[in-house]
């Protein structure tokens, strides 16, 4: 366990160093290029603000009202069977539709339960192992005018469901 933690905290700094070193070797003006990229990132983050606002308000109304408890009661058989918390189930549905909305929801989960809680870790794992399946399928096929997507959607859903189950299993196994 201890070894795994130390390796994983090394990865990001090593990647960062590798990127800058590789840039310098290839005569990239690293600072200027970095700032260009950061500029794009900031524009992206600004685009994200309305999503955050919408999700935070909607989720907080939903939580505060006690609707979550009602939903948990309704979904109880599913939650019992697969041992998936309602928040995680909901996050994995939103994740297939909108990246910014799912990201906002994950941050909201961190705020409510803490990033090192079971749900916090599960949300992180879910977000890291899935993608915005429906969005990608719509954008990618739409961009070239494809209307018949054949089996792309069922395959995407199966993969997402697999990563939901795998996330629950591995987070329980590693951290609980």
């Amino acid at each position, binding site marked *: 366990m201890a070894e795994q933690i130390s390796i994983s905290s090394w990865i990001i700094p090593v990647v960062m160093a590798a990127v800058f070193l590789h840039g310098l070797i290839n005569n990239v003006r690293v600072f200027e290029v970095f700032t260009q990229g950061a500029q794009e990132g900031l524009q992206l983050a600004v685009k994200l603000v309305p999503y955050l606002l919408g999700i935070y308000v909607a989720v907080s109304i939903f939580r505060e009202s006690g609707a979550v408890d009602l939903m948990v009661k309704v979904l109880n058989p599913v939650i019992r069977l697969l041992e998936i918390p309602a928040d995680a189930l909901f996050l994995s549905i939103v994740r297939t539709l909108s990246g910014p909305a799912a990201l906002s929801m994950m941050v909201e989960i961190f705020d409510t339960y803490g990033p090192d809680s079971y749900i916090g870790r599960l949300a992180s794992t879910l977000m890291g192992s899935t993608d915005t399946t429906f969005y*990608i399928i719509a954008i990618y096929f739409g961009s070239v005018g494809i209307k018949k997507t054949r089996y792309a959607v069922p395959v995407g859903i199966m993969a997402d469901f697999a990563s939901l189950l795998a996330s629950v299993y591995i987070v329980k196994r590693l951290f609980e």
Partner: protein
Amino acid sequence: MNWIFAFLILGGILAAAWNGKLDSITPAALEAAKTAIERAISLMGVVGFWLGIAKVAEESGLIDSISRFIAPLFRWLFPSIPKGHPAMGSILMNLSANMLGFGNAATPFGLKAMKELQTLNPNPDTATEAMCTFLAINTSSVTLIPATIIALRAAAGSKNPSEVLGAILFATTCSTMVAVVADYAFRLLYRKIERR
């Protein structure tokens, strides 16, 4: 997404009325709006920083090198793309950028890949097998370095933000394997159905 959003707000307000908690909705909503903007500011730092690094990796040719490195791993998944066709290059660039957690650098490569795959398509309104395989791998997300998630965990005060790396690697490997197998099974199934 519109339905989910409406469901959260309307469902929340209905449930609040049911539970007699209507008076706590307004302060909760306003407090959430305030928190959202605070989070947005820390998010700006994280996203700006990581995309800055992504840009350096793109410019220096690092993404290019990685895509050449992983080429043999993915080649066999796309038997219908002729050798040396530009579609394969774009697919690999897209997958490499995704692996490094540079999701936004990946999208332009992905769209380019679709355009090039379309040139191999005999029925322009129907997805080809290569397109379905590409999307299966792409949507199952082959992330090796989920930098945004780690940074957001750190921003939220996690004691060990990168502790989830192993779990993510496990889950993403499972889902990619399921995607590849399901894609293969569906491909054979559809060939049978469509031949009739």
